């Protein structure tokens, strides 16, 4: 008799728990949307976040749930027109060309123009160097040159040249991973048609900038006065272009006394097919074993 009660109780509890879970699973089942699965298959799977969602799966779910088609089907910049067309046909909406974007570099401080303030021997990443004092550059906002941006780029579009990150306009798909990796926030994602870029983010006053960097923005405001479209302003001691207003007239670049406002050449022809990522990354979760 003394065996029956404990065995019975554990059995009953096991059965009860199993029963409750079975019922719960049946009543609270969440079905994966069929449309979402199709859209997810069409997306490149880079999980870069360029669309503004947490990843490809998130974007696919949002598109599938959105019955009024308020979310655009062409937000995937790495996928370009091809993916936008496929997604549009799955959702049954009209195809719009993908809004292409591109990364620009807001520092021009290569080794011959500015210098390092320290001989840093620590962990060789920008992030680690930035934690130490305020980074190795003489200018607080200079490119640190360890290539954190190079490491995250899945498209092989950035390299470090003479201590400065240089973006290859023809390989860049505008996914924005490099912009997130830069501890100085020197990389910005802008519309593809952009031709004018301010190559400086210095927050020091003009006099200091002039001493430590041969090309830095000295906040003279000449560009501000030249611009007819109210598109360029000196904010925090450096010029900042408002790309919603900029008409690419390049007048500011011609006036700039330190030549820190660069003019990019127009693309020869729009690339037909954007390259696929070199290594598609999937979100990895560190799962410790108990």
């Amino acid at each position, binding site marked *: 008799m003394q065996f029956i009660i404990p065995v019975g109780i*554990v059995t009953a509890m096991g059965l009860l*728990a199993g029963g409750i879970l079975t019922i*719960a699973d049946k009543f609270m089942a969440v079905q994966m949307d069929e449309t979402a699965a199709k859209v997810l298959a069409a997306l490149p799977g880079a999980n870069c976040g360029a669309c503004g969602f947490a990843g490809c799966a998130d974007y696919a779910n949002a598109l599938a749930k959105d019955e009024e088609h308020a979310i655009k089907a062409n937000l995937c910049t790495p996928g370009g027109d091809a993916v936008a067309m496929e997604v549009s046909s799955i959702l049954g909406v009209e195809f719009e060309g993908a809004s292409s974007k591109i990364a620009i570099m807001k520092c021009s401080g290569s080794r011959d123009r500015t210098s390092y303030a320290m001989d840093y021997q620590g962990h060789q*990443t920008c992030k680690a160097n930035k934690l130490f004092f305020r980074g190795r550059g003489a200018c607080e906002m200079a490119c640190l040159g360890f290539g954190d941006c190079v490491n995250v780029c899945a498209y092989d579009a950035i390299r470090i040249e003479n201590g400065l990150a240089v973006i290859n306009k023809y390989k860049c798909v505008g996914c924005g991973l490099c912009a997130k990796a830069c501890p100085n926030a020197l990389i910005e994602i802008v519309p593809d048609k952009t031709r004018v870029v301010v190559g400086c983010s210095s927050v020091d006053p003009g006099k200091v900038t002039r001493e430590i960097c041969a090309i830095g923005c000295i906040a003279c405001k000449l560009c501000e006065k030249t611009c007819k479209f109210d598109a360029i302003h000196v904010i925090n001691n450096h010029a900042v272009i408002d790309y919603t207003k900029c008409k690419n007239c390049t007048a500011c670049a011609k006036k700039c006394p330190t030549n820190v406002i660069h003019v990019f050449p127009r693309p020869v022809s729009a690339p037909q097919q954007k390259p696929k990522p070199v290594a598609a990354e999937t979100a990895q979760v560190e799962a410790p074993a108990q």
Partner: protein
Amino acid sequence: MQEMMIIILSAILVNNFVLVKFLGICPFLGVSKKLDSAVGMSLAVIFVMVLATAVTYPIQMGLLVPLQIGYLQTIVFILVIAALVQLVEISLKKYVPSLHQSLGVYLPLITTNCAVLGVTILNIDEKYTFFQSLLNSFGAGVGFLLAMVLFSGIRQRIENNDFPAAFKGIPAVLIAASIVSLSFMGFSGVIDGLFGH
């Protein structure tokens, strides 16, 4: 009121589950690499600890003690906690998908976390009442959160520094953990000092 404060504060600082009682070391070392996942894991732990106590305490007092089968405590508690966590996961997925997404894989991991089983059994060993047990579980969870958040900051520094090859990786982390634990030992007199016992 004073008693409540004593229970919560001692669970958070003096008897910190991770750093003083060395329970739940695995997620402490495994999930503290990033601040946001450390916070997500800790919130899940707080939630499950309180819920598990609310369920296991009545089972112990209403079923195991009257029938004199206290030796079944461990297996029954494990069964109940595992089923409970699974149920919570299913219902979160259905009703609060955003929370489910942010907790991610940590929720099922808690099923077999020794800190959760530990807090339910310790509540009974300490002869707490039902309400005191809930407070103690909550405090233990908050203590876990505190340890995780503090340690994830230190982990960040460890990751970004150049160590001698022999210390790289887990050795450096374990040494750092021992020093943090050392500092928590300093809290042992705090409650007596605060409430004058």
